[in-house]
């Protein structure tokens, strides 16, 4: 890693207000007020660099990738594959050009795992271990396999602080074939000890699948250090476009996996009596891939790298800490913030209950103040049940948010409280 001047998080501090100027959407108004965008956990905004690069590619270089002989087809292929390698390097992939599979989103990446690896390795009675804080994207594909194959799902519980309870970990992992775990909860912000979990799961003989949707955009992420086997994330949460996601997998593991979808690109040969699948990673990329989006994702990665993921993390810790203090100071017992209570133990995601005002109503009033927060179950219904709520309101940060955004949130929440008296 590059030499860094030392600040709280080990990286150079970032200036969120300056960075925010790179994001055209953040200059718009909502209901006559400057937008306060606090929903980056659902989808982040994109800097001009990403938007411009996609447009420039479309205007100058676009052609279908692979097998094109003419110049721009070759150029398009080169840019598509360069984006792949760039993304691979960003997450510390040992073989970046072969281990990064482009999918539609993280959801498709996780479905790919359950479908391809799951169907060729899991049989009736086999155990898949999940956690109570998983997103539906890391639950439902396993449920579908359970319905089809009769596999058993086991759940690692959480405690009242939103941390995984690991006391019985070895018992839960005993005989398990898969551990599928999120690196960071999209509701609680909890940062799971993935490296430790992976080591214990491997000792028990289980494959480790990580959902890194909330980690890659906000924390330095190194697949080798994490020690996981497969890892999924989406471009649209990391300053990139929608329509493209990533499955990273260890090279030998991907080699052993059968194709997911069938069609063009994913074959070496097709005969009347069958087909020969392509090499990795193309084996898992049936049909024309999201080429413009890959170019955009590559530039999003460049942007994050230039800011520095250590700086991003340090900034989000300090902003989260500021927000926790501001909300508690102003609202005291009227606000219940879910998840770990110390900023260092969590990402920049704050789910809360405010008095007995329903999250929908909170979000509606906040919108009046230009404040965008999400209200709902956040695709984590088992977690909602564990928390004993139907829904929460959730404010989430990215590198372009600063303390003024938090102040606006606090003022708007105060107004919501007064409105519902």
């Amino acid at each position, binding site marked *: 890693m590059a030499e860094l001047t030392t600040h709280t998080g080990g990286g150079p501090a970032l200036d969120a207000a300056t960075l925010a100027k790179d994001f055209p959407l953040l200059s718009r108004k909502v209901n006559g007020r400057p937008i306060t965008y606090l929903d980056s956990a659902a989808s982040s905004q994109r800097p001009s660099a990403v938007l411009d690069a996609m447009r420039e590619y479309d205007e100058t270089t676009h052609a279908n990738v692979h097998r094109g002989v003419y110049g721009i087809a070759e150029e398009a292929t080169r840019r598509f594959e360069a984006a792949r390698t760039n993304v691979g390097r960003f997450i510390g992939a040992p073989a970046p050009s072969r281990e990064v599979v482009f999918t539609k989103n993280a959801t498709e990446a996780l479905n790919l795992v359950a479908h391809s690896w799951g169907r060729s390795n899991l049989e009736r009675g086999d155990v898949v271990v999940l956690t109570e804080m998983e997103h539906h994207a890391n639950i439902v594909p396993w449920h579908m396999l359970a319905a089809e194959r009769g596999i058993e799902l086991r759940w690692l519980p959480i405690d009242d602080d939103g941390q995984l309870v690991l006391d019985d970990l070895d018992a839960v992992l005993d005989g398990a074939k898969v551990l599928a775990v999120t690196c960071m909860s999209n509701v609680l912000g909890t940062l799971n000890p993935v490296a430790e979990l992976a080591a214990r799961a491997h000792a028990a003989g289980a494959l480790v699948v990580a959902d890194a949707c909330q980690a890659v955009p906000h924390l330095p992420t190194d697949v080798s250090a994490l020690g996981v086997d497969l890892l999924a994330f989406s471009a649209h949460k990391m300053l990139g476009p929608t329509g493209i996601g990533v499955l990273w997998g260890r090279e030998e593991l991907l080699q052993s996996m059968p194709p997911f979808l069938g069609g063009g690109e994913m074959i070496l040969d097709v005969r009347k009596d069958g087909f020969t699948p392509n090499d990795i990673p193309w084996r898992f990329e049936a049909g024309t891939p999201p080429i413009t989006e890959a170019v955009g994702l590559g530039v999003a990665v460049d942007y994050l790298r230039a800011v520095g993921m250590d700086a991003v993390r340090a900034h989000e810790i300090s902003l989260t800490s500021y927000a926790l203090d501001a909300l508690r100071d102003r609202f005291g017992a009227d606000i219940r913030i879910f998840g770990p209570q110390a900023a260092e133990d969590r990402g920049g995601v704050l789910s809360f209950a405010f008095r007995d005002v329903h999250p929908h109503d909170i979000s509606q009033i906040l919108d009046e103040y230009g404040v965008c927060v999400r209200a709902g179950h956040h695709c984590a219904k088992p977690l*909602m049940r564990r928390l004993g709520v139907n829904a929460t309101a959730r404010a989430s940060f990215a590198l372009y948010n600063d303390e003024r955004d938090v102040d606006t949130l606090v003022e708007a929440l105060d107004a919501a409280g007064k409105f*519902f008296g």
Partner: protein
Amino acid sequence: MPGLEDLYREIILDHYRSPRNRGELESPPAVRVEGFNPLCGDEIVVTIDVEDDVLADIKIAGTGCSISQSSASLMSAAVKGKSLAEVRELIGTFRQMMSIHESTLPSDGAGGGSSEAAEPQAIDIDALGELAALQGVVKFPVRIKCATLSWNTLTQGLDEAGVPA
């Protein structure tokens, strides 16, 4: 941009703060139906007593936002003691008030809330009484599902009770 006062009328806030007909009737004999709003996880339980051709009693349980809770409360007050034919008609009128925008929303398949994309007919707002306060909800399309949840659940209850549509 419509203002918040279009959405949160005084009557709505009143029914939200002091909901009418809260609770559950003993079932059986009451018919009990649960409704879900998959968008937000809100749940509602409607129990009804049908006697001869009258909706003799109704109770509402569950949790939800101010719009879904007040809509349910307003509905319970409006339909209690009415003839079944009147109840069906009121549901129709209410749906019409909401459906102008609902028909443009993707159906989530919950509780048969989709509406035939017919030309919006003139609605007899007077017939809706206090319910007309919910009119402003159509200006906030994402909240329409909140307002219609209890009505769709009641419809399901009437169907289960064998009340002709």
